[in-house]
Each structure stands twice: as C-alpha cells, then as structure tokens.
C-alpha cells in the first residue's frame, strides 16, 4: 500500500495543493473585486500609459475595493493568446482585440453586449467608425479609445521638381487613379521613385486594411452584406477592374513589390507614401513644411478611407460584467483613457471632445485624419470569416502586385474563402 500513499502525495502536490491555492486566490479576488484585463503590448510609451490609466482607475475605485490587474502579451501572438484563452474558457474579464475580429467573437458567443452601459449622448461623442466597428447586428459589443487613418503623404519639393502640381482641390479630395498614375509617371521620368506601398509588411492585415479602399472606391466589396457569401463579390467585375488599375502602379515600376527599406519616404528616397497615421510624427519631423497629405486616390467616383483599430470588449463569462464595463468606460473615457493613450501612441482619438486636447488636429496631416474618418471612412467587413478573408485577400494582393493575372487570382481567393464559409455554415445548419 506504500505506493498508493506515494502516488497520492504526488498527485496532491500537483493538483490538490494547487487547487487550494487557486481557491484562496479566488476568495481574495472576490473580496477586492479584481478585474482581469489583457492588452496587446505596444511601444513602451503606450504600455506605460496603459499602466498609468490602470493605476488611476485603481486609485479612483479603491474605496469600492475594485481594481484591475493588467497583463500584456506580445503583439504578434496576442490574437493566438486570446483564442487559446477563449478555447480554454479562461478569458480575462476585459480585453482589447482588433476591430475586424469583433464579429467572429460575437458569433462564438464570447463577448458581452455593452449597449446598456453608454447613453445615446455619450455614444454620439465617439467617432461613427468606432461605434460601427463594434456593432454587430445592431448591438454594441466593443468600443475603442482611438481610430486610425491611411493617407497619401507627399513631399512638396520632390513633386514640384517633377512638375507635379497639387491644387487645393486635389489636396481636399485626393486624386483620381488616372491623375495618380500620371503623377507617378512624371516622377519616374524625373528620376524620382514615385511611391512607397509597404509591400514588405509581414502582417496580412496591412494589405486588407490599406488597399480595401481601392476596391471600395471602385464600387466593389470584399464579402456580401450578410457576411457569409463571397461568390461573385470578391472577384466581381468592379474589383477586377479596380485591382487592374492598382496593379499598373507596380507593373510600371512606380512602387516596389519587394522593398527592403521600411521607410523610404522618410529618408527622402521616395516622393509619396501610402501609409498610416503612425508615420505622421516621423514624417513631420523629417520634412516639416515639405510634408503634404491627401486622401487616397480613388478608382471610382468617391474616395474611401480605411479605419478601425483596437477595441475593448468584455468577456461573456466575465465574473462581473458591470465592473468589467466600468473599466472599458474608463479606458474609453475622454480624460481618463483616450487623451493619455493617444498622447502615447499618436493614434486618432476616438472621441470628438478629445480633439480639443490635440491642437495639431487643426493642421494637416492630422486635420485630414479626422476629416476622412468623419466623412469618408468605411469599416472592414464585419463577418465571422474575417480571418480567412483577410488572409486570402492579402495573399492575392501580394501575387497581383507581382504580376499575377487579376481575375484568375481573385477567383482563386474567392473559391478559397467560399470553401471555408460553406464548411462552417453547413455545420451551423
């Protein structure tokens, strides 16, 4: 019987003592109302701001005995970590996730509805794009503290050198695709590299995020409105046409398909930069008055801007939904969350009243960020198949830039996504 005792001791050490310790922790947690919060790991400044926001929250709620416990995970594996925790049924109470993923999480029943925690008035203060990205089937599940923007930065001096004029009208509305290509042509003739498109970006998301506006401005879409059908949508005539136009920029050598330099515009090698708000500070510092910014060129009638960013959600299995929502309210509150985090990461504030804290939004390029978010931005599709869609679409864009036949390549991507959709949809019926 000796071994029974021995095994028992070992097993107890492994699970038994452990369990009692977990038990204790939970007791403690109940007493002080700890909200477990996860966030992606950004730049050090951003992390520091997040920690300070959490500390301020804890200080403000100390009397109620409420506090948050903040954990960071590296950016590149954050999405997997969330998926693992979800599968392990060990999600934190509140966490941030990438905007386009909200629909998938809602479909899996992992996010709590948050609509009731904000008044109409408060929601009106958020940029419409932020509310849109967190809303699925008319219900609000997530809200972010900041939004994003992609614009066409340009160097006034380099453009002037090549004889490219940017009128006030163009500055406000952006070029048509033909005008954009013509400008590239002039630059190339003048011996200046025309535009950086950041095709070396390793994240698939860059491609969908930055180049969907091309498809949208040509009147097309990535997936049908109900979010469960791509047949005839992804490889539609409009999209083939729009992306053929996009392809010319690479075909004619106006943009590099395999760039090695991550920031050729900043160091003066390239005249224009198809890039995001996160470059604004660096570009301004490097160029000063030479820096200009306009909306992305449009294939069709109307320029469309991309948008979307990290959004905060509350787990459907949160210990206390109300407390978790309290944290989300705090971190998306103007002075408690938005202002400090935007100071740290330079993103576009998600709340209108927050802009008063940032005088640079009266000037370009910042003014343009806000303007296009208010008037021209379109959220990426809200579909449970977003992960598949973005992966396949990005792969197609990479190939098209390198010269693949547009229609055939889009059809292939369409078939791949459709196969995944059908597999899952069948299972659901």
């Amino acid at each position, binding site marked *: 019987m000796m*071994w029974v005792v021995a095994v028992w001791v070992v097993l107890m050490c492994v699970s038994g003592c452990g369990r009692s310790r977990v038990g204790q922790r939970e007791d403690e947690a109940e007493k002080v109302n700890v909200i477990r919060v996860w966030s992606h790991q950004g730049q050090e400044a951003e992390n520091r701001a997040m920690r300070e926001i959490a500390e301020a929250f804890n200080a403000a709620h100390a009397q109620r005995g409420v506090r948050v416990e903040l954990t960071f995970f590296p950016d590149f594996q954050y999405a*997997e970590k969330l*998926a693992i925790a979800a*599968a392990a049924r060990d999600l934190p109470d509140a966490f941030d996730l990438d905007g386009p993923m909200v629909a998938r999480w809602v479909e899996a*029943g992992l996010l709590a509805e948050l609509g009731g925690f904000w008044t109409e008035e408060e929601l009106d203060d958020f940029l419409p794009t932020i509310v849109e990205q967190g809303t699925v089937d008319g219900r609000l599940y997530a809200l972010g503290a900041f939004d994003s923007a992609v614009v066409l930065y340009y160097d006034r001096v380099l453009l002037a050198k090549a004889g490219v004029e940017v009128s006030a009208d163009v500055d406000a509305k952006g070029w048509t695709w033909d005008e954009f290509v013509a400008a590239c042509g002039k630059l190339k003739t003048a011996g200046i590299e025309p535009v950086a498109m950041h095709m070396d970006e390793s994240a698939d998301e860059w491609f969908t995020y930055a180049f969907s506006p091309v498809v949208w401005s040509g009147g097309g879409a990535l997936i049908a409105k109900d979010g469960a059908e791509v047949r005839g949508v992804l490889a539609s005539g409009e999209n083939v046409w729009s992306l053929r136009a996009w392809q010319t920029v690479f075909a004619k050598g106006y943009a590099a398909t395999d760039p090695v330099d991550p920031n050729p515009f900043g160091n003066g090698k390239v005249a224009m930069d198809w890039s995001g708000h996160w470059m604004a500070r660096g570009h301004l510092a490097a160029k000063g008055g030479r820096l200009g910014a306009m909306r992305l060129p449009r294939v069709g009638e109307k320029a469309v801007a991309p948008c979307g960013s990290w959004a905060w959600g509350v787990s459907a299995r949160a210990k206390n939904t109300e407390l978790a929502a309290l944290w989300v309210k705090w971190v998306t509150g103007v002075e408690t969350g938005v202002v400090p985090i935007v100071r740290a990461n330079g993103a576009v504030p998600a709340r209108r009243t927050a802009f008063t804290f940032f005088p640079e939004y009266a000037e370009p390029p910042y003014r343009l960020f806000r303007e296009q978010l208010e008037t021209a931005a379109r959220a990426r599709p809200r579909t449970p198949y977003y992960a598949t869609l973005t992966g396949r679409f990005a*792969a197609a864009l990479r190939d098209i830039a390198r010269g693949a036949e547009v229609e055939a390549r889009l059809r292939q991507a369409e078939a791949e996504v459709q196969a995944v959709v059908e597999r899952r949809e069948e*299972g*659901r019926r």
Partner: protein
Amino acid sequence: MTRWEQERGRSAGWFLTPALALLAVFVVWPLVRAGVWSFTNADLLSPERARGVGVENYTGLWEDGRFRRAFLNTWMFALLVVPAQTAGAFFLALWVNRPEREWQWLRVVFFVPVVVAMPVLAVLWTLLYQPAQGGEMGPVNAALGVFGVPPQAWLRDPALALPAIALMSVWQGVGLQMMVFLAGLQGVSKELLDAAKIDGAGAWQRVWHVVVPAMRNTIIFVVTVTTILAFRIFVQPYLMTRGGPGNSTLSLIQSVYETTFVSQDLGRACAAAMAFLVLVGGVAWVQRRVLKEERE
C-alpha cells in the same frame, strides 16, 4: 508458475495502473480525438458543434498553399540538417574518441549546446545573425567580415533564412549524436582495426571499410532520430523569423499551431497533425525494416 509468482502477478495491476491510466488519458485519448476531429469541420471555439466532412480536410491540405509550403520547408530543413549533423557527429566522435582522462573535456565541449534550452539558443542566434545596420552588425557578419565576406541579412533573406536556421540547429544538436556514435565506436572490434592497419590501410580506408560497416546500425539509428527531430522543428523559426520572410521558414508544426489558433480551424489542424504523424511514423517504420534485414 509458482503460487508465489501468481500472487506477485496479481499486484501488477497496482504497479501499472497509474502509468497506463495517464498514458490513456493524455496520449491515447487525445490521439483518438485528433483522429476523429480530422474528419470533421470542428472549430476551435465550439468543437462540440462539429459535423463530419469525410476526407475533405486531408484532400484540402495539399491545396492549401501554406501547408504545402510548410511541408516542403520541413523536408528541406531535414535535408539540410540530417546529412550535416550525422556526418559532423560521426567525425567529431572519431576525433574525441580518446579514452584518456586529459581528453575528457573535449566531448563535454561539444555537448554543451545540447544542454542549453532551444528557445535560449534561438534568441541568441537571432542576435548573432543581426544584419549590418547603421554601423552595427551581428557577430556572425563581423566574423565573416574578417575573411572579406560582405555582411548578409541572414534571417531576413528568403534564400538564406532556412539554411541559417539549419546551421544553428546542427551546431546545437551535433553533440547529442556524437555521444551516440561514441558509444557505438566502443563496439568496433579492435582486432579488425589493427589487422587493417597491418594490411597497410590508411586512416580513411580504415574508417570507410571497417568503422562504417561495423557501426551500420548506429548510423541508421542516428539518421532516423535526427530525421524525426528535424521534422519536429518549431521553436527556431517561430522565435527567429516567425516563419518568414514570406513563409520561407514556416514549419509544419507552426502551420498546425496557426491553423488551430489563428484560423481556428480545428478539423483541418488535426488532419495536418495526423499527416505529420504519418510522416514521422513512416521514417520510424523504414528504420525498423532496414534494421530487421540486417538482423536476418
């Protein structure tokens, strides 16, 4: 069988239960589950809603460009590592096969990287391979610079990344295989070697005609184990290149991991895992066959 032996046999259950129960729960049961899931459209977040889809996951594997790439990369890695590591370990074993006490330190030297954890080495070699950037460069480039080799962007160049990782892996693992060969060398008949020497065979001839045939089984064993270990590559590319640049170092294990937790397609991931198992099992089976022929 004596009465006492029967009595002893009866207690076998008690001795076996803990291990067999744990193996059943944590090895056999997951294997069965993976097998079942591989024929369904199971989804990471709600596997209970799975529905059978026949062999679609398996047929779809090969059409999946990423999986195909991962499969080819894994083979490529094995092709780079196995010959280099086997040959390297073999010659190292010949070199360090010196029974004198004052030579003991030499085998320890080659064994040290085996003891260091792979994630540590992956991180270390990422730094060693740093490309030249603004007047700074990693030690590998700096060292090669002494011989006039221009600095390379080792891990960022699609053509160099996999070989660079292979080189690091050979360096890490060669000591282990060396030890196996060293043990095998002790079984090589001294008389045969001396006879060869008297017959005027040179060092090379002795290795090729006496040592290699005598160590046939050991060599087969080392090749098999190294191949299986090479197929299991995951940590190095995951930490050093994240599978890039452009999927050029994406491993099979990473593709299974990402299909599970990024695409969240559990059915497909399990099919990929089973395919991997067939690969590993195949190698082991071939080894057994080859060894058996030898014995007959």
